[in-house]
Every structure is written in structure tokens, then in C-alpha cells.
């Protein structure tokens, strides 16, 4: 607790500079091997951070720690200044973190629209009474969520597939649905794990446009794990290079990429 890096303000007070997501000296072991070693990072509101590194560098582990899917063996995670250690993934989500998964994890028996509505923070959702009685207020909330879901689908260009099941979509389209699902959370920071993997060129462009538009209009922060540097060049304000469980370098995307190329060249020489 005492090591909390300036937790200025509790939840919701997104003044200009209060970080929305902080990882502080995060460490995770898998069977005695450190997958992550004292990794720290800070994401400010509106930040777009690219996370790069080879396979097995610990990128997905870091994402899982930052969303509560796994618990760290050391270090702390703060969401909007609140310490989150030991909390469930649902608590992370409620605190304002949304995510996508490297290996797609859509709800396969739900329609595209239902996938998105499932993620919405919806008041009164757990009331059995209103689910069964379906009074006017409930119908109103349903309509509202459906409209919001359709708007998100329009944003990613999948409005016409709203009532299809996820099964019928291409891989890239499924990625876009996952993105829309994460956006439906109304989060303050969204963690994207290889969002463009398996996408066609058109889909990748769509993804880029959506992310830029959302980032600018809603001041939403993103942490993006991605192998495609071109994408990060367009999107990211800065980049982190993770290698063997440590952050080796961070800064402007170009300088980080140059450093990676340098070290690759050094190995080749």
C-alpha cells in the first residue's frame, strides 16, 4: 500500500493526469520460472500504448495480471488509483478495465448482438423478478441496450450480422466483435491482445479507424499487444518492449522498434 505510486484520487475522478492503470513491480512465476519480473507500467487517460516482444516474452501474462485473470506473485495493480490485488476479473471489469483475448473467447451460442449486450454494465440485470415479469422499465432497458449494441456494431461495420450467431463470422469479424464487446463495457482502459491477428487488410484498416476515433472522441486509453508494427506506428503514442519477462525499453514507437532491430542485428552479427 505504501508503495502505491501517487494514488491521487479514488474511482472516477479522471483529471488530466491520474493514471487509469498502473502495474507496479509485477512478478509472476510459472513452476519456478519467472514469466514476468518486476514489470512496472503506467497508463494515463487517453494513452495508447503498444506492447511488443517475442513470443513467450510475457505479454499475455502481463495482460492477464492487469485484468485479474491470474494473480501476481509479487507487485500490485492499481485501477484508477485503487489497489486491485486479490480481486476477481469481474471486479477489475467493474473498476474500469475491459479486454480482448489473444485466443478468441466469444460466447459461441449467443448472437453477435447478445455477445455485446452481455458485456454491458446493465443495472438491475440480476433481478429474477424483472427478467420474468418483463415490465415496462425492463423492456425500456432492453431496448436501450440493444440500440447501444447496434451502434457499436455499426462502428465496427457488422451491423448487418447482429442477429447471426458468432459461428458464421470470419475470424477477423470475430475479432471486431470482441473489440465491440470490450467497448461495450464503457471502460476507462481497454487491453487488446493481438487485435489484428488473422484480420484481412480491410478489417485491419477498420480496426485502426475505430480505435483512433474512439481514442479521440472518448479519451479512452488502450494497451495493445501487437506484432504488426505498422499498426502500432499508426496508433500508439508510445511503446514498451518486453523481453524475457522484463521491460527492456520504452518510449516513442519508432525508437523502440529501432532498438529491437538493433539488437536483432547485433545477434545476427
Amino acid at each position: 500500500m505504501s508503495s502505491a505510486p501517487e494514488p491521487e484520487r479514488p474511482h472516477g475522478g479522471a483529471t488530466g493526469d491520474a493514471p487509469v492503470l498502473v502495474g507496479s513491480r509485477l512478478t509472476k512465476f510459472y513452476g519456478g520460472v519467472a514469466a514476468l519480473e518486476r514489470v512496472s507500467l503506467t497508463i494515463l487517460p487517453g494513452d495508447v500504448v503498444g506492447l511488443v516482444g517475442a513470443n513467450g516474452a510475457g505479454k499475455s501474462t502481463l495482460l492477464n495480471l492487469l485484468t485479474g485473470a491470474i494473480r501476481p506473485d509479487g507487485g500490485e495493480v492499481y485501477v484508477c488509483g485503487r489497489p486491485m490485488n486479490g480481486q476477481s476479473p469481474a471486479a477489475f471489469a467493474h473498476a474500469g478495465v475491459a479486454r480482448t483475448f489473444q485466443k478468441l473467447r466469444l460466447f459461441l451460442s449467443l448472437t453477435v448482438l447478445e455477445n455485446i449486450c452481455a458485456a454491458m454494465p446493465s443495472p438491475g440485470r440480476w433481478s429474477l423478478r424483472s427478467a420474468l415479469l418483463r415490465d415496462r422499465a425492463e423492456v425500456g432497458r432492453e431496448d436501450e441496450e440493444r440500440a447501444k449494441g447496434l451502434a457499436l456494431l455499426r462502428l465496427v461495420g457488422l451491423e448487418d450480422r447482429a442477429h447471426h450467431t458468432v459461428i458464421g463470422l470470419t475470424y477477423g469479424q470475430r475479432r471486431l466483435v470482441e473489440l465491440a464487446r470490450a467497448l461495450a463495457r464503457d471502460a476507462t482502459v481497454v487491453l487488446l491482445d493481438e487485435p489484428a491477428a488473422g484480420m484481412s487488410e480491410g478489417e485491419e484498416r477498420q480496426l485502426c479507424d475505430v480505435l483512433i476515433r474512439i481514442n479521440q472522441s472518448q479519451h479512452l486509453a488502450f494497451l495493445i499487444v501487437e506484432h504488426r508494427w505498422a499498426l502500432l506506428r499508426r496508433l500508439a503514442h508510445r511503446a514498451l518492449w518486453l523481453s524475457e519477462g522484463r521491460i527492456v525499453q520504452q518510449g516513442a514507437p519508432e525508437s523502440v522498434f529501432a532498438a529491437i532491430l538493433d539488437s536483432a542485428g547485433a545477434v545476427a552479427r
Partner: protein
Amino acid sequence: MELIVDYTLTHLVYLSILVIFAAGVVVLYGLAGVFTLGHQGFMAIGAYLAAGIAGLMPSGGSFGLAAALLVASVIVGVGGAAAGGLLLTGPSLRLGGDYMALATLAFSEILLAVIRNTEALGGMRGIDVVSLLPRASGSARLAILGTYALASVAMAAGSVLAVRRLGCSRLGIALRALRDDELAARSMGLDNRQARLISFSLGAGLCGLAGCLYAHFSGHVSPRDFGFVQGALVLLYVVLGGSTAVGTACAIAVVYILDEGLKLRCFGLLTGVLGDTLVNWKDAILAGLLIALLAWRPYGLLPADRMRSKR
């Protein structure tokens, strides 16, 4: 003629009870995705509690008292079964898949062992349920029986529609999302604990309601009525019905009519040709048929596309 109507109405009641029971299992298995093998235990709780409440009726008590006790027995029976369900929510959050199936099985089998060994509950023989309803006898028999049939069919239809409506609601979407992918759903802020609390209390409650009705209508409950095979059969109907309430009700109707028909040697042509052999081998044939059905249509008789391509 009268006999046929009598027979049909009686079985209509039992069919409805089975449908209500299955609606409970649809909530547990179909919506919440809990692999349950212990739902017959919830039904037993409902039935024995109803029998106990009915036992409070003094001989020659007024009609009003009987009606009050009837309502009380349903409330207590459903509540008791729901409480039994809530008991299993904790383990269901910790145990996955097959292990949860074992835990529910152990729950209901231990419950039945307690019943079998408790003299006050009638032990192995079971107990007679004091009748709170006018017993169907004499000239008014068919009219009374008809009323029961109507009431139970209405309740069954109500349960099926309620479960169906639940499935489409916002709550239902959350339940199905958690069933499909728990980690993803929790990362989207869905609370699996709340989901399990709701589905266990509702599912077990419906099973308990079926138990209540069974106790009042049959007039006798014994541990044999709630055996493992009965429970597995209902789960089978649910799977054959594609894990939806309406599909399950249809599957139950088909199998039930087939079963009773074979018992009665209807289907004249078949029984005429094969004679007693068919009737003697009825259970074996049904079991074989169901295996074949499961093997060829594992997502139900009329699977929705989404279920078929699930894995």
C-alpha cells in the same frame, strides 16, 4: 370409454409434473451449464416437505384449512428445494464439470439414504400423503380429475414459458454468457456467484414444485420415486430437447407417449407382428433407441444451429 379418459387425464398430470421437473433441469443445465446429476434430490425435498405439511391436516378439517395447507405445502416445498439448491452453489463455484456432477449426485444419494433410514419419513416403504384435495371417486371422478389435469398442464406450460422468457432476458443472456465462457464473461464484469445463486434457487425450486405436485397427486412418496435413473432420464430429455424448455417438453411428450403406448400395446401393427417380444423388451429397446439418438443427434432432436457448432 370412461376408462380411457381417466387414464389419459391421470397421465396428463404425471406428464405435466415431469415437464415442470425438466424445466428446473433446463435452468440448471441449459442456462447455467451445471452438469447436474442430483436434481431428483431437489424433487424429493419438495415431495417430502409437501407430505409433511399435508400431515398437519386434522381428519375432518374444513375445506378452507385444506386449501391453506395446500398453499403452504407448495411454498415450503419449493422453498426447501431452493434452499437445497443454494447449498450446492458454493461447491459449484469451485468444482468444474464432472466433479460438480459427482457432488450433486452425492448430495441427492446421501439425502435419499437419510430418508431410507429415517422411520419418521417412512424409510424404504415411503409415506402416504394425507389428501388435501377431494379424492377423485364416484360419479364426479372425471370432473375432478379433469380439473387436476387442467391445473397441472397450466402450471407446466407456465414453467416452460417462464424458463423460455428467462433465457431471452438480460439475465438469461448473462447466464448463457457465463455458461459459454466463464473467464471471458467474468472479465466483462459478469458475476458468476450471483448467476449460480439465481439459477440454483430457481432450478431447484422448480424441481421442488414438481415434487410437491407429485406428492399431492400420487398420494404416496417413497425414495424409489427419486432414484438416480429417474434423474438421469430427465437430463436425457433435456439434452434431447436441445437444452431449451420448449424442446425438452416436446422430447418428454414423445418419449412418454411412446413408452406408455408400448406398455398398453398400442401401435397395433407393431405389437401385432412382434407380439409379446416387443413389450418384454420395451425398456431395452427404448434404452438402445436413446443411445442411437444421442449418438446421431447429440445436440437434441431439432438442434438450433448455434448448439451444433458449439465445439
